[in-house]
């Protein structure tokens, strides 16, 4: 059930109405939990049992960890939780990848290996809810939060429908206290929440799906047919598509949660205005980058232990971050590129400490960062290395863009310029300056845009597949 579908409109209206009519915080939580499971069954009903099983196991293990004083036993219980969650992820998401690569490896060694067909449907959102759930058991293990949450509240934390299938990856210590405390959303929270949903849907339906995706799809499907500016338009178009698609989804999630009185953190903060890659990763998919920082990079040693170890940790984190997106070497390559960029930036920061803070160099740094980010999107989007190379070499062949490609370039130029302009603000700070008339016009423009582009085949949000 996509946020931009008619069924979701009916679903949300029904749940929101019932939420408003019900009295009693406990009853409301039951409603949200039941609605979230119903929302999840819309994709593949049997998989809701995996979600429930994973939830119950982590809740139970966290309680055991919390009550346990012996360090070795606590560690063992944590390992059980990690193995259970990561095995689930590995089975559904990486099983086929492992089998195919084993076959290739054995073939290279001259051994004929014919594995069985791995025909397993990936449970939607498994990467997101697994990470959300893991953050809970790890935080309990670290004694950063108590494991005294009732099962219903914990289940709602994991399954709450606005973040269930594509994040933001909400932390237990942020959402559980909100679930525990009775909440009544204010009129203005509802109004701003719905405005965020409208802006998010506009980003998704108008910008990502209508203006940018067709250009990107065409260039990546037939790279040889789009020389020069056309190929460049395709590369930039995908950069825009994935930002407006996932950023739009995140805005919808934040807005929907707000309509029920819950606060989700920002997931994007004008990433294409980043100055350098460490800045980019503070602005892009913030809930994943901070998760990887807190639960992978820092436990690996972070920046403690010398330059070599720091660079190794950065690279490992980014490679695994790439792999998190899907079972493909192209995602690993994307992660590797970002890891290399971060390492290179670190080296440069040490060599020329003032350069990154020099306001004169800021425009150049922003443009360079944007171009390299777009370069890294090429292997991310390309289905294989051959397409990736073909798209990149197409850029060097002379040629003019088509009308659609020119439009995509224009949209991206406007988007990057706007991000540059507001890079140090939040959306809320920008919106606070709008008059009431302007607010109404923004809402109307977004809603009309969504209406005008409706009616075709709905594209799923890109991050649903991760």
């Amino acid at each position, binding site marked *: *059930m996509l946020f931009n*579908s*008619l*069924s979701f409109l*009916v679903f949300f209206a029904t749940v929101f109405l019932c939420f408003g009519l019900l009295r009693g915080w406990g009853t409301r939580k039951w409603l949200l939990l039941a609605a979230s499971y119903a929302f999840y*069954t*819309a*994709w593949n*009903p049997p998989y809701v049992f995996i979600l429930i099983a994973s939830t119950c196991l982590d809740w139970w293990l966290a309680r055991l960890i919390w009550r346990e004083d012996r360090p070795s036993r606590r560690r063992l219980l944590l390992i059980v939780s990690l193995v259970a969650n990561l095995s689930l992820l590995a089975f559904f998401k990486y099983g086929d990848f492992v089998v195919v690569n084993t076959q290739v490896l054995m073939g290279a060694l001259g051994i004929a290996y014919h594995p069985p067909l791995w025909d397993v449907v990936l449970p939607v959102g498994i990467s997101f809810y697994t990470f959300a759930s893991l953050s809970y058991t790890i935080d309990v293990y670290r004694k950063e939060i108590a494991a005294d949450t009732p099962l219903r509240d914990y289940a709602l934390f994991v399954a709450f429908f606005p973040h269930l299938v594509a994040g933001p990856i909400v*932390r237990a*210590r*942020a959402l559980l*206290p*909100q679930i525990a405390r009775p909440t009544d959303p204010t*009129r*203005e*929270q*509802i*109004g*701003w929440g*719905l*405005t965020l949903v*409208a802006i998010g849907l506009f980003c998704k339906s108008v910008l990502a799906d209508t203006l940018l995706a067709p250009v990107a799809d065409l260039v990546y499907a037939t790279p040889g047919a789009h020389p020069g500016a056309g190929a460049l338009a395709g590369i930039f178009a995908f950069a825009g598509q994935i930002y407006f698609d996932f950023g739009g989804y995140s805005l919808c999630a*934040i807005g929907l949660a*707000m309509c029920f009185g819950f*606060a*989700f*953190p*920002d997931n994007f*903060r004008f990433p294409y205005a980043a100055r350098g890659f460490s800045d980019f990763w503070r602005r892009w998919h*913030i*809930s994943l980058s*901070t*998760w990887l920082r807190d639960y992978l990079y820092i436990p690996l040693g972070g920046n403690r232990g010398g330059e070599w170890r720091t660079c190794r940790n950065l690279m490992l984190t980014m490679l695994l971050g790439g792999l998190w997106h899907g079972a493909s070497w192209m995602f690993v390559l994307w992660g590797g590129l970002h890891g290399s960029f971060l390492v290179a930036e670190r080296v440069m920061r040490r060599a020329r400490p003032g350069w990154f803070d020099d306001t004169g160099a800021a425009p150049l740094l922003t443009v360079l960062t944007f171009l390299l980010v777009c370069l890294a999107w090429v292997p991310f989007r390309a289905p294989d290395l051959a397409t990736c190379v073909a798209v990149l070499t197409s850029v060097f062949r002379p040629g003019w863009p088509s009308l659609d490609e020119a439009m995509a370039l224009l949209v991206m130029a406007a988007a990057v310029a706007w991000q540059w302009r507001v890079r140090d603000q*939040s959306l*809320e*700070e920008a*919106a*606070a300056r*709008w008059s*009431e*008339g302007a*607010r*109404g*016009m*923004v*809402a*109307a*423009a*977004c*809603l*009309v845009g969504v*209406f*005008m*582009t*409706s*009616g*075709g085949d709905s594209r799923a949000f890109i991050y649903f597949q991760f």
Partner: protein
Amino acid sequence: MRSSTSNSDIHLTRRTLPEGRWLVPFATGVVLLLLVVGMLEGALAARGFRATVVDSPALWARERLHASEAGRHALILVGASRAQLDVDLGALAEATGKQPVQLAIDGSSYVSVLADLAADDRVSGTVIVDYQGGVPDPDFQDASMRYVEYWRHRERTGTTYDFQRMENALAAWRQGTLRSYADGAGPFAALVSRVLAPRATPQYLVTLPTRSRDADYSRVSMPAFYYQRVMRNAGIEGLPALPDYAAVDKALADRISGLPQASTANLVENVGRLGRMVHRIEARGGKVIFVMFPRSGLVRAADDVIYPRAVFWDRIVPLVGGKGLYYADEPSLRDFTCPDGSHLDVRDKRRFTLALAKALEARGWISAGT
């Protein structure tokens, strides 16, 4: 527990809201949206456009279920556009007392649908096949397979709660209610090509919720539309520029007279397989009737050349159970004129359907009013 005010703090428990009112401006935005929708609908209505259903595998599957559920009371139409455009389901129900089910699929062969009906033991009604000429090929895969596969998948997965079905139903409701989505378009396409375009193509074809279709040929430019249809049906391309329509008519007639007859390869074998499908349905108490729907003018001439009756129809019908009605054999049917050469106008639909029902009744294949 920290209570952050920075919205990008991953541990925040409270978001900072932009100051001022937000619900009233959002409500204003919704009102403006409704105004835009209303204006677009009004503009489309003023230009004569109607809301239409858009045919889809989901819609077909819904009708297909009726074909199974209605048992011997079902009167199932199978074939292509002629069965959709020429038959008035309301009139058919009125004349026969049966429950008509429209399973014809525009531009498709009837064979895969007939095979699906034959394979379903619940189907025991009367099947009217819109025979299109030529040798049927049971192995040919065309657009109808997508419909049949969708139905089979739905049958396999059962009738439990299904998001896609709900979404399809809502989309169908939206298409059947708003002109902005007519004919599978979206509001933007409707605005550009129907409201803003100075010479917008009129909407002569409307799909009804039952999957039947109405064609109003008074809305198209004749005879250009007719000649386009003739060329499409006869597979003629590249007609040179001619001074007038009389010359076009003559040139097309000449080209049609020189068209080759369709191949009869595998006729006996393929029709034999078709006959086995018919036999399976009839063994359950059902009936399968082959009907050659009316053609006119050069479309009829082309069909007579490509699919001569003596070579195809007269040989095929006995092999598939013998129940065949050729429009030219029936005085009440043969005088209908197809404005585009291939299909009837909506104004003739009811009269034709009543005459068809009567002709079938006269042959004892359906019993009127039962």
